[in-house]
């Protein structure tokens, strides 16, 4: 794999991601290319299921890098994200050393000398041996670099954001007892957010801001093509065009790309060759996740199926 070589061009990114089954729009490819070139994290925003997390996975597998994922949630703190001391091990060592204490201090004539000797291994307990690296520190320690995915950053507390700032801008962390640990190789950092809360300006400033929305019809067809290889071209066109009509409705949750792919898989399993009213009505629950949405969509199914069929016949 080409992890050592810099990326050649935006087109290379596009084809590289495509080889992993991730069809990227030019904007996404530009963002990935730029983040590599100017060493900045990417902050990806967009509705659920448009492939934000998938993007990180695709980059990792394309570049042959390890992917380290940090799932954010409320109450996530540095002990879980950054590092923690191995308390049990520290405790165990103290117990063992208690017995050795006499031997170690045996040579000391005075209290002062004994203290001197104690000082010498006082620091031992807070050395790298006792640090338990959590995802963020792990990411910095990878010798070959890695893809660090910080998922759903908007779910974490505002304090946690501040914790990230040092890593995002300088790719280093400071541990009070050990000093600053810099990255062996700057990782490719991807943050995702569902915009549940507004992120701080300081965080946004350090990132490239990428918004992934619902893809255009052509792009979505290509995505379905790459993800669901068994589907016929006719069905694919009808399906994508049907979903685009569904998205014009006022729904609680719009079907996103992941739902399109799921639905395509279902239709292939049912061995459909083209979109039919009955089949759509039966499988609508794959696409829409709320009962009220299904009810809102049902009356439109017939027209949408018809127009999807028509569009396909001409287009």
């Amino acid at each position: 794999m080409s992890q050592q070589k810099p990326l050649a061009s935006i087109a290379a990114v596009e084809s590289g991601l495509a080889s992993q089954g991730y069809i990227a729009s030019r904007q996404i490819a530009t963002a990935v290319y730029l983040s590599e070139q100017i060493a900045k994290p990417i902050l990806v925003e967009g509705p659920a299921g448009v492939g934000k997390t998938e993007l990180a996975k695709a980059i990792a597998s394309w570049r042959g890098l390890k992917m380290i994922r940090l799932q954010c949630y409320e109450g996530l703190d540095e002990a879980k994200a950054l590092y923690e001391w191995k308390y049990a091990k520290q405790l165990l060592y103290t117990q063992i050393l208690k017995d050795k204490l006499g031997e170690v201090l045996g040579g000391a004539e005075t209290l002062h000398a004994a203290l001197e000797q104690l000082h010498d291994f006082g620091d031992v307990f807070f050395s790298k041996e006792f640090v338990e690296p959590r995802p963020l520190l792990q990411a910095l320690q990878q010798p070959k670099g890695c893809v660090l995915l910080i998922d759903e950053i908007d779910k974490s507390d505002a304090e946690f954001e501040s914790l990230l700032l040092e890593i995002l801008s300088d790719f280093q962390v400071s541990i009070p007892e050990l000093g600053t640990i810099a990255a062996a190789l700057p990782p490719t950092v991807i943050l995702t957010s569902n915009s549940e809360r507004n992120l701080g300006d300081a965080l946004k400033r350090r990132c490239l801001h990428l918004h992934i929305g619902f893809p255009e019809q052509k792009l979505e067809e290509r995505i379905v093509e790459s993800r669901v290889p068994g589907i016929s071209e006719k069905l694919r066109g009808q399906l994508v065009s049907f979903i685009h009509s569904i998205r014009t409705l006022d729904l609680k949750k719009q079907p996103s790309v992941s739902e399109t792919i799921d639905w395509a898989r279902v239709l292939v399993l049912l061995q459909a060759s083209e979109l039919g009213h009955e089949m759509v009505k039966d499988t609508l629950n794959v696409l829409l996740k709320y009962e009220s949405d299904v009810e809102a969509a049902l009356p439109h199914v017939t027209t949408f199926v018809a127009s999807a069929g028509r569009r396909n016949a001409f287009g």
Partner: protein
Amino acid sequence: MHVSPAESIDAMRAVATVGFEERGILRDTLLLTLAKSEDEKKALGACFDLFFAQPQPTATKQSADDESAAVSGLQSAPSAGGGQQPQDLGPLAQMLLSQDTAEIAAAIANAAGAAGLAEIRYFTQRGIFQSRMLQEMGIQRLNDDLDELTATNPALAERLTAATDALRETVRDRVAQALLLYGREEAENLRNEILRNAPLARIEPRQVEQMRALIRRMARRLRERFSKPRKRQRRGHLDVRRTLRRNAAWGGVPFLTAWKRKHRDKPKIVALCDVSGSVARVSDFFLLLIHSLHEVVSDVRSFAFSGHLIEVSDILETEAAEEAMRDIMSKVGFGSSDYGSCFADFERQWMASVTPQTTVIVLGDARSNNLDPGADILRRISERSKRVVWLNPEGRLTWGFGDSEMPRYATFCNVVRQCATAQQLERAVTDIVATYH
């Protein structure tokens, strides 16, 4: 949109790596580096498109036949003995006649820079900028040339006239585009500023929509400012788990203590909104404001009254602003107000909802139609609550005149404010919510 120096440096670095041959990629790059939200992306995208949509000089409008004829004419002109003529012309005339679009575009851009086109703010300035730009480009000389040519070489003069018209048109488009680019925000700000300071009761029907949009934006700003997780107070109960961990290195002897964090008081608000006939024109905005309060603060109970008082929390909580307002007005709106009996209603049924943490807001003109004002009830409410805030849409001068009971009520209120414009409304609400942070 705020772009810090660090961000522009990043953007420049990014542009340097991708180059600027392809406009689409340049656009993506700038959107990625400068914009920080979807709204900003939209705004920046529009701005980018506008900036690069500079009208092309339309000097080549003539049909191809014409043009080739013109070119051959130009070439033949020197050989035909009139060769000195184009040389006599001013630089602008020569440029126009040679149909060099790139050069003309460059000249227009230069003139725009010299005339300070980026300073344009209002549409009334279009004329002056147009003439300034043409002046910069040497329209004077061109006119002289035209006069001269009309006498000596009418064919050439005709072509030059056409080219000049095209030039004027291009310059006009350029100025219009610049106005769109630089002036739009200014115009909007001006309009909003005027609206913010206009008395709510005197807003014309056509402005109501804009006013509502303004209040909605105000509500969003409040929400953004105050809906962040509340600052937590340290020191509460001992956090046993974290304390043990932290002190493991000392064999579990608690040298360092860790504390559970305690939540602060959440804002608790009880809002009483007058929707009677006398304040009908502003009650819309009051309700809109309370509706937005429901979005910002989780513990709000709101009541609407004119002749009697009802609780409207559920309506405001569940329905969209417009529907909720219609609903409430149809239930209790437009009656004649009776503050005394409404306060009595409140005391009878909902007094228990007022606690020492509660802020009570009364929105109304305190005109009780000479009925019993029930000031003693307000005193009891005031004693139970953290504080009472009265927002009155009338000016201070009229308080106490006619049937206004404001002075009597004011003694039991912690804060009394005039609240007639959107700006005053915003300040009042900001103050109320801010005391809890």
